[in-house]
């Protein structure tokens, strides 16, 4: 038990360190991005020098990079993620408002993609005929060749919910990974032995293949979460869904760098958290 708690604490520490490193990297990119700290008001010659100095200090340009890091992290610990330059609203409030919508879409999208991909993988392994195999490969091959933005447009055209689009984008990659993992487990010697002894195909699949493939499948959860979060950005941006994905796109289009930094931190935490959960699940099973 103590060992498990120690392991969990180590993982949580690593999670926090990775998130902070991610945030600092993003803050560094923002700090050195061309045009950082440029404010239209700075060009107004009617303003006095002290007013211009005040504007410049708003952007924290006076200190060096370490000072910038310090103030950024101090702000983070106080829950201050800054103010969006484009929307003129606190970033924390914006994230709080939009995160549930994205989380719901990603969760339902993932769930749908997992159910359909698992069903397809099981069907192709259970009935190993060329017709089933080719149909599944053709379907996923076609879906994989569609750009995410085109799927988003199709969803908008068909008035389909955002989560369905996320599922369509995640499904083909997920199917290929799942199919490969299950097919590999299917070639193991004990499966061959079971087949030689006349055990039914369904029994082999559910009693011998899936229990063996369970660990790598659990690890796929983290990867699929990352894919789904990535898919949420164009989906929300093009189908005008007011989630974090649309916010990220707006921040990018309007070069709202404080907003972009905080969204990066948020996405880093979310994906690392998903990977952490998947890793913990895998470990608890073993």
């Amino acid at each position, binding site marked *: 038990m103590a060992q498990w708690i120690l392991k969990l604490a180590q993982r949580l520490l690593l999670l926090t360190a*990775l998130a902070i490193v991610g945030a600092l990297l993003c803050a560094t990119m923002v700090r050195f991005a061309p045009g950082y700290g440029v404010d239209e008001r700075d060009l107004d010659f009617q303003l006095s020098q002290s007013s211009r100095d005040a504007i410049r200090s708003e952007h924290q340009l006076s200190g060096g990079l370490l000072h910038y890091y310090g103030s950024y992290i101090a702000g983070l610990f106080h829950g201050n993620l800054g103010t969006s330059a484009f929307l003129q609203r606190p970033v924390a409030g914006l994230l709080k408002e939009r995160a549930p919508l994205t989380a719901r879409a990603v969760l339902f999208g993932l769930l749908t993609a997992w159910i359909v991909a698992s069903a397809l993988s099981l069907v192709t392994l259970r009935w190993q005929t060329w017709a089933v195999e080719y149909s599944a490969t053709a379907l996923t091959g076609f879906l994989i060749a569609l750009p995410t933005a*085109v799927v988003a447009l199709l969803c908008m055209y068909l008035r389909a919910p955002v989560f369905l689009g996320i599922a369509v984008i995640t499904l083909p990659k997920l199917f290929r990974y799942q199919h490969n993992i299950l097919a590999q487990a299917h070639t193991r010697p004990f499966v061959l032995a079971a087949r030689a002894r006349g055990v039914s195909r369904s029994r082999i699949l559910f009693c011998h293949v899936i229990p063996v493939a369970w660990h790598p499948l659990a690890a796929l959860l983290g990867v699929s979460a990352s894919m789904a979060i990535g898919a949420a950005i164009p989906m929300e941006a093009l189908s005008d869904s007011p989630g974090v994905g649309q916010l990220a*796109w707006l921040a*990018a289009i309007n070069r709202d760098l404080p907003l972009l930094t905080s969204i*990066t931190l948020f996405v880093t935490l979310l994906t690392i958290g998903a990977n952490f959960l998947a890793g913990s699940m895998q470990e608890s099973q073993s």
Partner: protein
Amino acid sequence: MTAQRMLRLLCRATLLAIFGLGLFAGSFTHYSYAHQFRELPNTAPSAAHWLGTDGLGRDLFTRIVYGTRVSLVLAPTAALLATVIAALLGGIAGLRGGWLEKIILASTDLSMSLPLLFVLIALRALLPLDVNPILSVVATFVVLGLVGWPASLRVVWAAAKNLRDSDHILLARALGYRPSQILFRQVIPCLRPVFLAQFWISIPLFILTEATLSMLGLGVMEPLPSWGNLLRGSEDFSATAANPWRLVPLVVLVLTLICFQFVFHRSEELA
């Protein structure tokens, strides 16, 4: 000849034809991709304009062939950049081991944990957005190349690590070969199939990512065409429904990617 072989041959021929179309774009059309026939906006296909014109009166066929050049020439360039980075870092990590390996793998894990599209959008936004079209192409594909290496690195690292412990490298060391000799005569030739597989796998991924970035307005800028920004026109559903030939860029894109999947299926298996 098996059906699978025939299909692969057909896909190869299609890819060659599409590549040829892009590379020799000037031979297939005598219009400029930016020339606007102001009196002919949204026209149907005709002898003068094989695929009609867009909303600004630009010849759609011309824009597709020049867009093919942009997408199909620059995606391999970005793939080459990503593969070189993956080969260098993965090779160093796999062959040297120790703390360097740990640092490289930790940074790879961090990069892999973030969605590629999100990182690309964030990085592209940090660069100026109102740049000239040529610069936007370079920026888009350089960013793609600089960000798209982590998955390839993992594969190269695993192959290099296996090679480090192999008998023939041990023998080369025992025979007194210098590290540079081992690298160029033993390691790189052995890893070449892995590098090639990673290169071919990255191309369709970068074509797709460029298309999505350009559709979001963060990729190749107008008036320079690319498959992505040509698809931006399809956002207007009523115009697309009235002029279905506007979907030709999508058909070409999907066809190319499906052909890539069939032709380089073996590379994927190898990787």
